[in-house]
């Protein structure tokens, strides 16, 4: 039993230090895993310390709840495919936010609503942010899992409705801070925040998910931090804020990589088919050239330098292992193979890196946009696998294009470009890709996995 508050605080400090080190160790893949173990130790210290507090009871409930949660957590973590990692992260964001909101609700109830203003503020914020994160994450999960359409879901006056809902929730929060002691107030606050969470993620399309997931990550962190104020717990405040800072930073990075403001991502409902704007019309006589696997295999085998540009299409087709096998074959033939990773390729920050790491691609072969762009002019073949908007030269050249100004991978500067794509459907932004009309570009239509498998056998026999 721990009854000395200083001992308690010191043990929580140990946990805090472990969490900070866990993040620090993530600065290199070499010791990142050790960092996670250290974070695990910190969490165990925090949990054990709390359980040893004097006066803790309801042991049966605690153990049963923990057992159920552990089973669900372990099964989820072991079963999830690396391609489904964005959904998984969304889900974990959600449960964390939900827990924070429930803690606020329980605390409000325990105190019968009689709270000093700063306690009331923390309870209100924890309930508000936690609920938004919970509901928003579940919608993001549903979209990524394709339980609902990944396209933006919009209706007229959406932003007005959203502002009204959030305004209502904020008004309730202010009333609670001002001294409203009724329990319905916190319940209504949570319900409104849940509705808002759903409404604010619904209009956001799949390609904007990297921004949304990062933002929800930040929200859950902040909710945990607010819970720390409610319970006067330094470890919650610090750990929550570390997550809040990390999520905020990632959100900013992702928005920057798309050259869009966060407000534009959240309220712009990007990705509807935008009439007129930036439609590179094909009526100037240029046409798309399609080709077969055999031709591509020859081109690849005799290249000196090939840059692979993976995108969400590779993830959808689960083609990462086959891509790596193809790259290995080419390397055996003396071809220099590199991978170019756009920061927003896929559905979450770093999505492509994880997939390729899963396929055992050494991380020294993965290059960020700024590193690889100067190399495209010396590249014989740029092999674009299921990536689209991040390669569209219109982002550089066409001020009318919705993606104008977005930093892209300069694949059009390679000597030749092969685009593997399911069909000529436009990419997520709903705009045509001028790259496909380039005289140096040939298209290999079909599912990414099947196409890569065909390429592998063609390269083997050539």
């Amino acid at each position, binding site marked *: 039993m721990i009854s000395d508050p200083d001992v308690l605080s010191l043990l929580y400090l140990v946990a805090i230090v472990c969490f900070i080190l866990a993040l620090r160790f993530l600065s290199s893949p070499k010791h990142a895993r050790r960092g996670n173990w250290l974070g695990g130790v910190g969490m165990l210290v925090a949990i054990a310390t*709390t359980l040893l507090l004097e006066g803790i009871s309801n042991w049966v409930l605690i153990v049963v709840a923990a057992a159920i949660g552990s089973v669900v957590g372990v099964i989820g973590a072991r079963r999830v495919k690396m391609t489904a990692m964005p959904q998984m992260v969304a889900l974990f964001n959600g449960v964390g936010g939900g*827990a924070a909101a429930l803690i606020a609700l329980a605390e409000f109830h*325990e105190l019968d609503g009689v709270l000093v203003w*700063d306690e009331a503020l923390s309870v209100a914020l924890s309930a508000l942010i936690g609920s938004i994160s919970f509901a928003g994450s579940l919608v993001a999960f549903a979209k990524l899992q394709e339980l609902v359409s990944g396209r933006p879901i919009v209706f007229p006056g959406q932003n007005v409705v959203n502002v009204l809902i959030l305004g209502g929730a904020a008004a309730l929060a202010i009333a609670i801070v001002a001294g409203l002691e009724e329990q319905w107030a916190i319940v209504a606050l949570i319900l409104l925040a849940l509705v808002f969470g759903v409404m604010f993620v619904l209009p956001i399309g799949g390609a904007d998910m990297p921004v949304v997931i990062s933002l929800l990550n930040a929200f859950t962190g902040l*909710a945990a931090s607010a819970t720390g104020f409610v319970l006067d717990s330094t470890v*919650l405040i610090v750990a929550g804020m*570390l997550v809040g800072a990390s999520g905020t930073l990632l959100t900013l990075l992702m928005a920057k990589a798309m050259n869009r403001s966060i407000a534009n991502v959240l309220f712009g409902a990007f990705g509807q088919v935008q009439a007129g704007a930036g439609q590179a019309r094909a009526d100037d006589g240029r046409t798309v050239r399609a080709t077969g696997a055999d031709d591509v295999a020859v081109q690849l085998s005799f290249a000196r330098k090939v840059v692979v540009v993976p995108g969400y299409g590779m993830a959808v087709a689960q083609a990462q292992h086959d891509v790596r096998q193809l790259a290995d074959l080419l390397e055996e033939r003396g071809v220099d193979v590199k991978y170019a990773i756009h*920061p927003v390729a896929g559905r979450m920050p770093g999505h492509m890196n994880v997939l390729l790491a899963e396929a055992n691609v050494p991380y020294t072969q993965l290059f*960020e946009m700024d590193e690889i762009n100067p190399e495209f002019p010396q590249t014989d073949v740029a092999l674009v696998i299921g990536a689209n908007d991040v390669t569209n030269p219109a982002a550089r050249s066409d001020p009318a294009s919705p993606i104008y100004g977005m930093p892209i991978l300069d694949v059009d500067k390679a000597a030749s470009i092969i685009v593997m794509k399911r069909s000529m459907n436009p990419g997520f932004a709903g705009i045509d890709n001028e790259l496909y009309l380039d005289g140096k570009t040939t298209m290999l239509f079909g599912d990414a996995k099947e196409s890569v498998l065909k390429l592998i056998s063609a390269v083997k026999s050539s």
Partner: protein
Amino acid sequence: MSQLTFVLELTILVLAAFLGFEVVSKVPTMLHTPLMSGTNFIHGIVIVGAILILGFADDTFTKAVGFVAMMLATANVVGGWFVTDRMLEMFKRRPEPKKDNPD
């Protein structure tokens, strides 16, 4: 809670924010997905709050709410940690000479 502790807590919060930005900005883009799932795991610290609520609950409502919170928070902690570990294990493989990596 006295005003002083509130201000102290706010001080800790702000310092943690700056520290967080500082530490996280050193994480390479390559590791951004593990960073997300790792921070996912860290916000599982709400489990401390869930234990405090459930452990000191004496009416049915608080017990019920605390129970659900405890379940969610445990799933968050356990799942977040295992997923991150699984991912980082893949990154750990050193490049070394290429072709001796059969699988």
